[in-house]
């Protein structure tokens, strides 16, 4: 049943895509309602699956495997799909956001030149993203991974008349493909060592030591490189801000809620493959990305750029969580982030729509008077992103920070991880409220645009309402559901149970339990995530478990307090600097800070000059090398060929000359000339006189006789 549903959920948008790709000009309204309806149906199905996953005694609800790519006799790579709780959760996230974005786009994209094609793009994205989370092996994951890259390329480049849009599309594809190449190398290692790409087989191979040592590290790093590309981790994050060239609903769907989160999903899904050094690498990449992107977001002016860097930063959080082993926290944050960041992007879309496609925040101001509903739900999402109690982001961010703290307590050398996390929390609150105050409060800075601004119509508002509400209750709501199943739990335990039961994948869980003790020791948080069950069986470890639970509890309390304080400080600073008082001035003029730190400001404004660096160090040299190779090919390689041709013709010329001069002229014609000359000269002897002939005859006889006599 679940299997049929999960296949259906995948087939619906696929059928929609095929129909629309071929027939969209002939469908009513280019098939927008059809596409939206299909995703709506998909949402209903995924909710059914999710409900089943909640109540199912077996964590693995469906599993289907079939041979797909034969590689040699007997062997072959399998295709397949599976549904476990992790998948069920991702299905809800993907179909929900996708459905709402479809709905939102009906108004937002109205009258677009390629309206039908846009919906085709959304459909193909939905198909590939659903395939990605349904896959039960690395090969299908990789395939869908590339296909979401394709749909991202198509949708970023939707307005491809603009050079900047097509540039951004290419940049996104190539940058993520760099990660994908790494991932493919990881896949090749797995294939080499294990011979199968099924998750279950890979985890078993790690357990038995078939995949271990340097190969395991390399495979892990390779696969993680794929996650770095898609989830825009430093230094492969550069494509995501540029991807904002795409239509805003696309940014909400692909570049905020779902596709960019695929890397986090991947880290969670294949966590048992990663060994300790890889996990540490993952943690540092995540932490650094979180703080790095947050600093850039501090100064950006484009409303979508701020959100884009915020997304990069939040993805860093999730990756950090995976790295310290708290993958359930990371996936929890993925879900809540999908709600509030999609809400923020769609809200920004409503603002941009109202302001006639003006994206610069320095032109905004006072918009809450014109669009109060948008402003209200935008505020909900902003508060969630800032991690304010009791919004959903508070719970999930707290879970990550707590895991980072626990990790740091176990390994005091790695203080950077929690510190970066808390610093990011502060900066996030600051830049988000900077954005909120600049956009919705104060006096309008562009009066003309302000006058024409209006509240969004219902297809645009409804997604905001749904997502804004989920941003508020997203964490708690599901916690309640879990609490129903076990009413004794409450508070922090609720969140933790939510994280464990709702977001863990049984096969990941199984594999983690089986992680060798030394590996478990190096990743205490990984152990902590799946600890209780394993430890309960082992009485000797009970004390440790209790100790660990205690540490986790303490970490959660500290994380909550600290992040709340930092978040509120950030909001306060934002208010002081950007919330205008009655006279239009702020308490602290931002210029007071920007001017003395001019250089810092410039560096941040230029995003640490990474784009320029890549342009100078990678893109231009590659193009030059291409030019050079092309010229080399023509001038050197082809010249050798032409030289042989020339040589042949030279030889032919020489032979021809010799032929004409020596053979023809001297030998053939020469003998002819000689004959003619002889004839000419001898003709004088032809006098016609008989006496003379007689003399010749006699002379001849004499000479011949003499010769005969003397010689013989």
């Amino acid at each position: 049943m679940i299997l049929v549903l999960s296949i259906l959920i995948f087939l619906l948008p696929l059928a929609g895509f095929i129909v629309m790709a071929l027939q969209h000009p002939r469908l009513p309204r280019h098939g927008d309602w059809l596409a939206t309806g299909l995703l709506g149906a998909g949402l209903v199905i995924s909710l059914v699956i999710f409900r089943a996953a909640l109540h199912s005694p077996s964590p693995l609800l469906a599993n289907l495997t079939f041979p797909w790519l034969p590689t040699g006799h007997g062997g072959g790579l399998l295709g397949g799909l599976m549904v476990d709780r992790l998948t069920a959760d991702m299905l809800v996230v993907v179909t929900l956001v996708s459905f709402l974005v479809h709905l939102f786009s009906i108004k937002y994209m109205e009258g677009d030149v390629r309206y039908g094609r846009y919906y085709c793009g959304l459909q193909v994205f939905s198909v590939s993203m659903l395939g990605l989370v349904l896959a039960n092996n690395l090969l299908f994951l990789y395939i869908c991974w590339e296909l979401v890259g394709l749909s991202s390329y198509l949708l970023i480049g939707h307005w491809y008349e603009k050079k900047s849009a097509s540039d951004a599309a290419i940049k996104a594809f190539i940058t993520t493909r760099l990660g994908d190449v790494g991932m493919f190398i990881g896949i090749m290692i797995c294939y080499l060592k294990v011979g199968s790409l099924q998750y279950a087989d890979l985890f078993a191979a790690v357990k038995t030591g078939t995949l271990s040592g340097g190969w395991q590290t390399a495979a892990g790093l390779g696969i993680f490189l794929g996650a770095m590309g898609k989830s825009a981790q430093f230094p492969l994050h550069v494509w995501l801000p540029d991807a904002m060239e795409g239509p805003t609903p696309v940014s909400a769907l692909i570049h905020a809620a779902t596709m960019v989160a695929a890397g986090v999903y991947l880290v969670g899904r294949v966590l048992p493959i990663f060994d300790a050094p890889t996990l540490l690498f993952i943690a540092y990449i995540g932490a650094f990305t979180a703080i790095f992107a947050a600093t850039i977001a501090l100064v950006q002016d484009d409303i979508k750029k701020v959100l884009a860097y915020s997304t990069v930063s939040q993805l860093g959080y999730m990756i950090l969580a995976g790295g310290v082993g708290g993958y359930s926290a990371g996936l929890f944050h993925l879900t809540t982030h999908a709600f509030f960041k999609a809400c923020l992007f769609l809200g920004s879309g409503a603002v941009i729509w109202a302001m006639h496609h003006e994206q610069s925040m320095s032109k905004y101001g006072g918009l809450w008077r014109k669009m109060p509903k948008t402003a209200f739900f935008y505020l909900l999402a902003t508060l969630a992103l800032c991690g304010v109690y009791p919004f959903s982001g508070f719970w999930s961010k707290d879970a990550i920070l707590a895991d980072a703290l626990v990790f740091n307590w176990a390994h005091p050398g790695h203080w950077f991880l929690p510190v970066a996390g808390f610093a990011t929390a502060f900066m996030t609150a600051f830049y988000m409220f900077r954005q909120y105050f600049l956009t919705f409060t104060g006096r309008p800075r562009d009066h003309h645009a302000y006058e024409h601004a209006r509240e969004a119509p219902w297809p645009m508002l409804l997604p905001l309402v749904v997502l804004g509400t989920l941003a508020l209750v997203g964490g708690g709501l599901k916690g309640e559901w879990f609490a129903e199943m076990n009413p004794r739990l409450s508070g922090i335990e609720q969140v933790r149970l939510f994280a464990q039961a709702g977001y863990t994948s049984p096969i990941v869980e199984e594999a983690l339990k089986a992680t060798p003790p030394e590996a478990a020791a190096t990743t205490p948080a990984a152990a902590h995530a799946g600890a209780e069950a394993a430890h309960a069986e082992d009485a000797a470890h009970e004390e440790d478990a209790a100790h660990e639970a205690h540490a986790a509890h303490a970490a959660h309390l500290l994380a909550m307090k600290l992040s709340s304080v930092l978040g509120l400080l950030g909001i306060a600073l934002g208010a002081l600097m950007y919330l205008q008082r009655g006279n239009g001035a702020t308490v602290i003029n931002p210029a007071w800070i920007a001017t003395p730190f001019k250089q810092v400001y410039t560096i941040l404004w230029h995003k640490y000059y990474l784009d320029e660096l890549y342009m100078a160090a990678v893109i231009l040299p590659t193009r030059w090398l291409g030019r050079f190779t092309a010229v080399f090919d023509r001038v050197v390689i082809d010249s050798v060929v032409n030289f042989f041709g020339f040589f042949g013709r030279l030889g032919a010329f020489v032979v021809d000359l010799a032929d004409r001069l020596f053979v023809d002229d001297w030998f053939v014609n020469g003998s002819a000339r000689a004959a003619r000359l002889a004839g000419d000269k001898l003709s004088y002897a032809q006098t016609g006189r008989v006496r003379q002939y007689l003399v010749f005859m006699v002379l001849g006889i004499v000479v011949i006789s003499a010769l005969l006599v003397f010689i013989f």
Partner: protein
Amino acid sequence: MDFNKMLLTLITFLPLAGGGLILMTPRERVGTIRWISVATTGIVFALTCWLWWIFNPAAIASGTAYSGYDVKTLTDVPWIGAYHIHYRLGVDGLSVLLIVMTGFLSFLATFVAFPIKKYVKGFFALYMLLVTGMMGVFVALDFFLFYVFWEVMLLPMYFLIGIWGGPRKEYAAIKFFLYTLLGSVLILLVMLAYYFKMQSFEGGKYAEYAFNIPQLVYLQPFHVPDGPTLFQHLMFWGLFIGFAIKVPIFPFHTWLPDAHVEAPTAISVILAGVLLKMGGYGILRLNYPLLPEVGATASVMWFLAILGVVNIIYGAFCALGQTDFKRLVAYSSVSHMGYVLLGVAVLKEEAVNGAIFQMFAHGISSAMMFTLVGVLYERAHHREIARFGGIGTQMPVYFGLAVVGFFASLGLPMMVGFIGEALVFLGSFKYNWLLTCVATSGMMLTAGYILWTMQRVYLGKGKEEHAHFPDCNRWELISLVPMAVAAIVFGVLPVLALNIYQTSTGVFLNLFKNLI
């Protein structure tokens, strides 16, 4: 008479009969001539599909000379009896795949050739001869016959480029002809070596097998216990260069861009789609099986694997630097055929399967790319990438097909290009991980030049000078849509193609079982 026994002969010579029919048609009746070609190639394509359908590689027990070949269609009649030259036709999985591909492409290419106005009769008559030559190469199991078809195919190609080509057609045609002929001479020498060897091998017991390819492979007349001799090396490299020119493999590739740029679109389609595969086919049918000891020598494997990687990367860089659209596609062929060489050279099952799939995939994707370029050239009469731009908005249907074609070539999963690449890499990774990692940079470069080209040609604001360009017409759609469908179908269900030739791969690799 058993129809199946006639099948290969029909597939090979039906085009020739069609060509004869064309010759008897009055020159002015252009329409009739075209439809004769369409009908002939259509029937041939149907016959190739029938061949696919009835093909059964398991009928002959393994361990015999003909194992892997299809017994139903084997044809063997003495031709020049005194020299043991036979009219011997037969197919194994590898040939079936390539025959079907050839049937498919030669059928579609006739539609591509519809815009040709000059000497239509001559064009299609030569084209039919070309199809016979190509089919003959893939069905011949007699070395001599193979050589004959190999040469037969050259001649019409020379005229098709030399008469219907672009501004530098004479240069390109002669270059193509002479270059390939140089390779043929080397192949001829090896063939003679085998002929004379068979006269004395085991006291001349097997003299009648002098040109019998499966028997030569089975008997291995030049086999000596202690590894490959210098003479075997010479023969291996003779064959290799002969086929490498056709593939083409760096540094023997420079005839290709010139030939492609000058050739008319339909001929480019055949050139890239089928002719290049003949090189790969020769390597898989003759070069490696006849001389497995050399192919399995460590240094040779290394050298050829590296050469394959060089092809991949060098071709991609060259493509990146091109300013002519068609030249770019030509260099992408050089890059893509590098996967074939890499896959064969490492002698791993996945890789050889991948190399064969890559030949098939490249047949579809490059044919499609050349058709796409041709459609544009038909309208713009130039191919300078820099002068295009914004075609996407002006020709939306064409643009949609172009996206399919270019992404298939890029190696996007669920399209043909991916399967070949992935299998080759999976196999070559087993051979050497470092080399393979270097080769994967080709995936990046390919994405780079494909996307950059698409941006410059299709994306951007529509230009005034392209405003009057009509979208794809009926004939262009008839040729492009099946290619697009094939590009997707075989990407989603690679097993359709793989099931055909996997047995042949196994037979091929059995030759090397005790050597590596």
